């Protein structure tokens, strides 16, 4: 499965700008992820081949970083902060409300593939706690309330 041309050129540019193939590995993964939401085995293998590294080497890097997703991610991504400050401001109740609404736990994707819910910390939104980061553009939002989940879900695209 060949990589789309804009990703190929993006990776080549990263290699040139970041000082080599190794340094560009993470950027290559980010480019794929930004375009497609996640990095599949096929995309990983294609990127490795383009870079001239082995799939083991690229996956070793990919699986280290929490924000590189190696499983399919819904078009609507909700990253709820579960750090201490958000906890103090009611993040647990928000999480429970989202879990109840979507029917999935953190780490899962809805059966129709639309929403993926993840717990992360800390998102640098402590003054807007409880905070969340939404979508591929990683939009910071907050404070989120348990009775305001609709807005959250709508914004997650």
């Amino acid at each position, binding site marked *: 499965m060949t990589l789309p041309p804009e990703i190929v050129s993006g990776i080549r540019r990263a290699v040139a700008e970041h000082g080599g193939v190794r340094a560009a590995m993470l950027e290559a993964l980010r480019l794929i992820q930004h375009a497609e939401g996640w990095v599949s085995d096929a995309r990983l293998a294609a990127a490795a081949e383009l870079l001239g590294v*082995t*799939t083991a080497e690229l996956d070793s890097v990919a699986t280290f970083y929490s924000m590189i997703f190696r499983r399919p991610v819904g078009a609507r991504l909700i990253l709820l902060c579960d750090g201490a400050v958000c906890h103090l401001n009611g993040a647990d109740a928000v999480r429970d409300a989202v879990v109840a609404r979507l029917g999935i736990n953190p780490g899962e994707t809805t059966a129709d593939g639309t929403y993926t819910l993840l717990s992360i910390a800390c998102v640098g939104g402590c003054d807007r706690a409880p905070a969340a980061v939404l979508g591929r553009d990683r939009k910071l939002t907050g404070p989120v309330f348990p009775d305001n989940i609709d807005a959250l879900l709508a914004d997650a695209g």
Partner: protein
Amino acid sequence: MKVEIEIDGRTVTVDAGKDLLSTCLEHGVDVPHFCWHGALGSVGACRLCAVTVRDDPHDAVGRVEMACMTGVAAGQHIRVDDPQAAEFRARVIEWLMVNHPHDCAVCEAGGACHLQDMTVQSGHRTRRFRFRKRTHRNQYLGPFLTHEMNRCIACYRCTRFYRGYAGGRDLDVFGSGERVYFGRAADGVLESPFAGNLAEVCPTGVFNDKGWSQHYARPWDLRLTASICPHCAVGCNLTLAERHGKLRRVENRYHGAINGHFLCDRGRFGPLFVEAAARLDVARHREAPIDLQAALALARTMLADDAIGIGSVRASLEANFALRRLVGPERFFIGVSDTEAVLVRRMATLLRRGPSRIASLEAIETADAALVLGEDLTGTAPRAALALRQAVRGAEKALAAAKGVAAWLDEGVRVAGEGRRSPLILLTAAPDALDEVATLSLRRNPSAIAAFGLDVAAALRGEPVADADANATARILAAAHAPLVVAGAGLLDAAIVEAAAAVATALGARAALALFPTECNSIGCALMGGDGLDSAVTALEGAGEHAPAAMILEADLYARADPAVVDRLFAAAATTIALDCLATRTTARADLVLPVASFAEAAGTTVNHEGRAQRGFAARPGRMPASWRLLSELRPGLFAVDAPALDDVLVALAQDCPALAAAASAAPHADFRTPYGRVARAPQPFSGRTASDAAGRTVDGTPPSDPDSPLSWSMEGAHGVQVPAALATGAAAPGEHSPYAVWRAQTRIGGPLRGGDPGVPLIVVGALPDDDANVIPPVSVGVQEIPGPTLLLIPLHDPFTATELDGASALLAERAPAPRLVLHPADAAALGLSAGGAALLDGVPLAARVLLDDGLPRGLAGLSTVAFGRRGPPRRGRLEPA
């Protein structure tokens, strides 16, 4: 430079510039550790080597430091037994036990497991962790290694060895935190030919020898014996483990100048051929099995009127010599082509001529510039290729040192070294596994490789040379402190070997020359003397109807020479007698077949590429006698005494072949005794004698005796550090039962064994008797154009299979690559051949698929050795589509 420090109250004088862990170990102080390794340096991951350090006497408390990550400094006071440090070490074990499963009872590492040893040493006993352990799925990693990731303690040794030391790229670490995972990106065969070392590198039971895993036993039930690998000319030292008459496992036996801590997979999984179904255990006369005594009687008859002997480059000196004495020196030949026999004799002469030093693997590792002419080391002498990979890191280490980074800080050195590589100039005919570490990699046909070498030699002598690469190479080698030149018999090209020697000579005494013949006793046979198979056949055919019998020693001649020549041998000889441990094409054709012991069932001395004579011993009592013993029964009095033992053969060898006289001292004689008696193969807690096996049989009986060595088959005798290195029966010591215990046997970490590394040199540089030493046979200078339609056939070597010994090991056979015919795309197109297609070679179908590679020079056809069919002088062949 030396400094004084105090360890546990004892003042010692130690080398500056080292880490505390190595220093403590070198002074006999056992500091627990996991992630540190003598060949891999310090990384500080496991945190087990905690000791308490006080920088001056006024510091009452001291601080806990990791010994492996702390440099030695004058005036340090270190306490290993300090309660602060001991408590922390126990906690490290407790943390590792959080996820480690309760597998000991069913784990094949048990009893020889470093994690077990460290756990016992730490004093941690009771599990407080009451939650769920993290678990992993295992991967299929190929035929050699098991994978049991739940046991992993994340010491990172596997990736550090596989990637950092061996250059492998398909094993890595994945994930983070407590979920770190060591494996491949997906299930599949581990590609590196050194992957088997993971079984010893892993301190717990994640990676195990798969053959072992299927039939494992506990170490206290195993007999361990020192042996020498028969699978190539490097002569790595092995420890063979036996139980109930079966060879169970091969492990590395440390040798400071040869294999160090590591083996290649061919040597680790090859020796299990001794348990293959293809073993010969019954004498045969033309198809029919016969009783051994009858067979011997028949043999005496066959040999009565004249016989020639065909010796073997994979058989011991004793075996070859017995045959030589039996038939007489003028009737003794070597079972390889004349080309090879002449080439290896020439190699021995060149090594002796000097002035360059003869390179050991240790010298290869420490070279600061290397030129490899023609030899695919990874295929012909894999462990030597691994040594060369370490040499390339020299420049990185030098830059790191210039920046003030401690040499023992493995990662710091790699980072500070900025990826620099010591020069490695590689000239091969086909793409080579070492291309990825070479600083200059050139593809040339064999005559161009020889020409390049001669150009380099000429440039070194100050003569004008046109080739820019050759000039550059000469400059690089001239500037090096320890330049290395490598060549071998891989292409059976004499000109290449001469060129290599010429370069070494031009460099002088500071250079090291490594010449690799094909097999474990090629040099031994060369020193013994004897022409090749072509000459044998000529002699047989010349005798017409008075042709003598031919006695063939331990070799499949069809794998070592032109099959047509071998056929002529069988046709011309009056009768043929073959002695071997394995059924081969040769034994199938011989009139009389006598089964003999394999290398693992008899003591024997072989001579490696350096000219080092080393002795291996019987690892299990053999059902068949050693071939030299069988030969001595054919003529009583062959070795002056009734019932000769190995030492008697060696005495006779010294008389008849003075060049090999020193071989007798390769190991202590059979009457050598330690203060504790013989050297015991079985460990002290050996229960094998009175334990019943799975079928309920008690295998007790009078222990067999071993007249050929000072070893005993029982547990009575000397063990461990009490044993001289050449007889070593494992490094285990009280409290240390795993391969990690080897540090106790070293004079210093990474250095020679106490008492000296085993083996005795038979080739001494400068001791020049031969008249032909100074005569350089003429070689063609300049590149020969290779016109079509025939192509020059070159063998493509493979790390896993070279001879019938490897083929007989089921595990190695699984790793043999599919037979292939490699062509340059343009040549293929011109011949009408396409990728994946089948071809005829000189009209005969080839069992090989066509592969296209534009890295192969035009005019060459690469044939994998199995497809090649035979080992012989370089020749041209006509290829066409099938």
